[in-house]
């Protein structure tokens, strides 16, 4: 199938930096998940830390 002018123009315009940033942070997230961090985050989120909200 021949490439249309719009397709070629769009391909030239695509910015690569956002995809590199997304890949980097996705890897960071995966590393964090692999260390079991979400379970710790959940543990914190379901507790009320009174001094954290200015009480106590």
């Amino acid at each position, binding site marked *: 199938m021949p490439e249309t002018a719009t397709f070629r123009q*769009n391909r030239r*315009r*695509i*910015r690569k*930096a*956002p*995809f*590199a*940033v*997304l890949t*980097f*942070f*996705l*890897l*960071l*997230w*995966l*590393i*964090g*998940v692999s*260390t*079991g*961090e*979400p379970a*710790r*985050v*959940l543990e*914190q*989120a*379901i507790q*009320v*830390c*009174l*001094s*954290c*909200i*200015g*009480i*106590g």
Partner: protein
Amino acid sequence: METVRKWFQVIVALLSNSSWSFPFTGTIYRGPLKVICAPGLNCYSCPAATTYCPIGSIQQLLGNLRFALENGQYHFGLSVLGILGVLGGMFGRMLCGWACPFGFLQELLHKLPTRKFAIPRILSYGKFMFLLMFVFVLPLVLVDEFGAGSPWFCKFVCPAGTLEAGLPLLLLQPGLRESLGLLFLNKFVILLLCLGWAVFSSRPFCRTICPLGAFYALFSRVRLVRLHLDESKCTNCKACHHVCPMGVKFNEAPDDTECITCLACMNKACKFDAISLEIGGIPLAVTEKRLS
């Protein structure tokens, strides 16, 4: 489009705070949904909160890092930073404009008919200081005799926490009122100042203090979804300057760290189609003018 944005803000605020059993339980939601990251500033000690606050989580993880490492757990906050980076890399501060309950509240307060005041640009650098010092450095470095750090931003500053968690919990659990002290007074005064300032200036907390806004601002040049300026169409009429709620001079700085992509400049101001929304460099040519 402004109506769509308002409804989107309402829906996100409700989804982030969708547990309404607290009048009966007298405490916060403790279910599994709290493993989901809130895209905006939304305190996870709010009785109705069903998501976790990324800023609160990072401080807690860093404050307890010594204990975690002693137990062989490498909890550096990478999962939270990772998800924040993915959100920031996709939308940047668009999340402030579309998905932050506290930003939405400030917008509502700013609608009150009073004289309005601009915010000096230099104050906008304050939020980066709060992000660096109160969220990362102080919780990690200043520790008590047991080696635990405090969540400095939550504890001493965050007005969203006072409004969404502190005050409701004081109403739900009257016994807590006995433990009120200077700490609460300090946070209550900050809350009043932020809300009062929001009546006279547009989104003052977002622009000067919010560490989450500061983090998302780091992605202003590399985010996937952003506003694009077509310089060949721009006549330098400066109409975009007058409608921006964040004080951005869009035609002079299209990648300004303050831009929350509320689309006011594109839809309300520019008559020359010089501003468009783009995803990864591809313009989405859907302004309200073109639709009508």
